[in-house]
């Protein structure tokens, strides 16, 4: 089954003279098990598209199916459960709770899923282990590097065992080194358990991670590229430079 199926999706912000046509009849299918990158100029509608796919923004018209279930037109009461069930979010600015340790940040997501107490503690530790932060369970976000924070956020996103992970500019706030670690992780996550990972990016350095890259131009789907071959070793030390 397709993870996400978008048909004739339209999003207009506002109305009348001030209306902004952010998405104009988007058709897009995201397969389970693929890492898809969304690229495009600033203001082209990338964030709007992932927001609708993530069920945190309602479309003006069209269809957006999550594993076959239509989400356009659902009420504000129904959407939280769909997000909880299916979607993990990763943000450019991490959005961690500063008052909580890495482990507690993950525990909140488990709490939302109804996993509590010692079970939640154990599960949170496993997830942090999974993202390579087994030694940072008790650290507060302020004491972690950007890359570590993003990995905590990934562990948190994984807590709900989502079938879809949506990331908006996940590496934009990171140095190359950390960006590599994060993208490696996202790619692994896409390939295990047939998860779909969609990452919005401006970052050309991470293009080769994509199973597919989709370009958005002015609210429409533009070019699509299949996976790029791994680039040869470069001397610039960019993210692309991997053996």
């Amino acid at each position, binding site marked *: 089954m397709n993870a996400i199926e978008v048909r004739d999706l339209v999003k207009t912000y506002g109305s009348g003279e001030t209306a902004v046509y952010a998405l104009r009849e988007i058709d897009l299918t995201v397969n389970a098990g693929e890492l898809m990158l969304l690229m495009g100029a600033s203001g082209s509608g990338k964030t709007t598209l*992932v927001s609708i796919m993530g069920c945190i*923004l309602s479309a003006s018209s069209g269809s957006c199916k999550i594993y076959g279930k239509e989400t356009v037109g659902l009420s504000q009461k129904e959407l939280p459960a769909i997000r909880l069930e299916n979607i993990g979010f990763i943000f450019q600015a991490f*959005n961690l709770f500063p008052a909580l340790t890495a482990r507690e940040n993950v525990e909140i997501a488990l709490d*939302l899923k109804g996993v509590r107490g010692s079970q939640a503690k154990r599960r949170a530790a496993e997830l942090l282990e999974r993202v390579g932060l087994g030694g940072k369970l008790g650290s507060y976000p302020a004491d972690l590097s950007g890359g570590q924070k993003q990995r905590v956020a990934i562990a*948190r996103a994984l807590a709900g065992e989502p079938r879809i992970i949506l990331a908006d500019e996940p590496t934009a706030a990171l140095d190359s080194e950390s960006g590599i670690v994060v993208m490696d992780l996202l790619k692994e996550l896409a390939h295990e358990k047939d998860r779909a990972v969609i990452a919005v990016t401006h970052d050309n350095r991470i293009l080769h991670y994509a199973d597919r890259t989709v370009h958005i131009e002015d609210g429409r789907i533009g070019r699509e590229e299949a996976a790029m071959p791994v680039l040869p070793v470069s001397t610039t030390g960019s993210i692309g430079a991997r053996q």
Partner: protein
Amino acid sequence: MASIAIKNLFHEKVRLAVTLTGIVFSIILTAVQLGIFLGFIEASTGIVGQSKADLWVVSRGVTHVEQGVEFNESKLYKVLADPDVAAAKNHIVSLGAQAKKPDGSDEGVTLVGFDLDGGMGGPWNITQGSVADLEIPDAVMVDELYAENKLGVTKVGQVIEINKRRARVVGFTRGVRIFTSQPAVFTSFKNAQSFLGLNEDQSFFLVIRARAGANLEVLRSRLAGELTDVEVLTTSQLVYRQGMYWVFGTGAGITVIVAAVLAIIVGVVIVAQTIYAATVDHIREYGTLKAMGATNGYLYRIILTQSVLSGLIAYVVGIAASLVISRVSMEGTLAIIVNWQLAAALFVLTILMCCTASIVAIRKATSIDPAMVFRG
């Protein structure tokens, strides 16, 4: 969920300190004002409420006992004839007495003349001497809190003058506060008659103890029907009249209640403002929770937990401070009474105050658009 709330709360120490200080002060102010109110009630009704009598016979239309008008003793015999009356005694409470201090100045007193054998209407909280000592002609008992200041008396055996007659202090009470600040002077009914220059057959009140098991209301209305020109009241009815007259009639009660209400409002505003500010500061995290699938209810519980927890901490501190203030006030004539009922009421009030204060923050949380999480 609770742990997020608690951790958020303690993460911002300065904000927590400001919130707690605000609520603590609000609780102390409210407790003190309401404690003064209870002190007023106690001081204005004590000589009735502590009388151990079941019923009072008072002249018609009396709004407070200090205003009693004398009537003929013959009513006493009618009362005693009732089979449900276990005891009935003459009684006097009067503001019509002046004491002359050793330095020669005058001081109005509240003269209480009671039947020494009746066990009703006498002094309470006796610290020196005994009711039996009042058998001596001219013997009086006064309260320690007023003795030195108002009457120039410091020890047993001293002599003062009441309405130009000799009065010997044979004992002390402690804590018989009088709303008017005219100190209570307890004496035998006979002495009181002579201090006031009454005839032997004149009395101000009758105090009655009902036979055990008698229906007070039935007895009250039967006596009321038999006696003319007087009213028969239960002790609690007279306590109510006393309280209404002194505490509300003088405006003193309204003043402290208004002050208490203001203190509560200030508390609500302070908590509302800090909880709101805390919510606004965490808006991105709340948005993230919403994006992750948290319902509005989940966010409300976080916010409510934070404010109720602040309330609980502040309550413990506030009530402890209020109890200290109350204890200190007991050394003076203005009692601030913080009893368990007031403490319980303040507890409920604090929790209500914190929940009310959360409304603004909760509305803010409701309005958070989860789509904000992807915006810069």
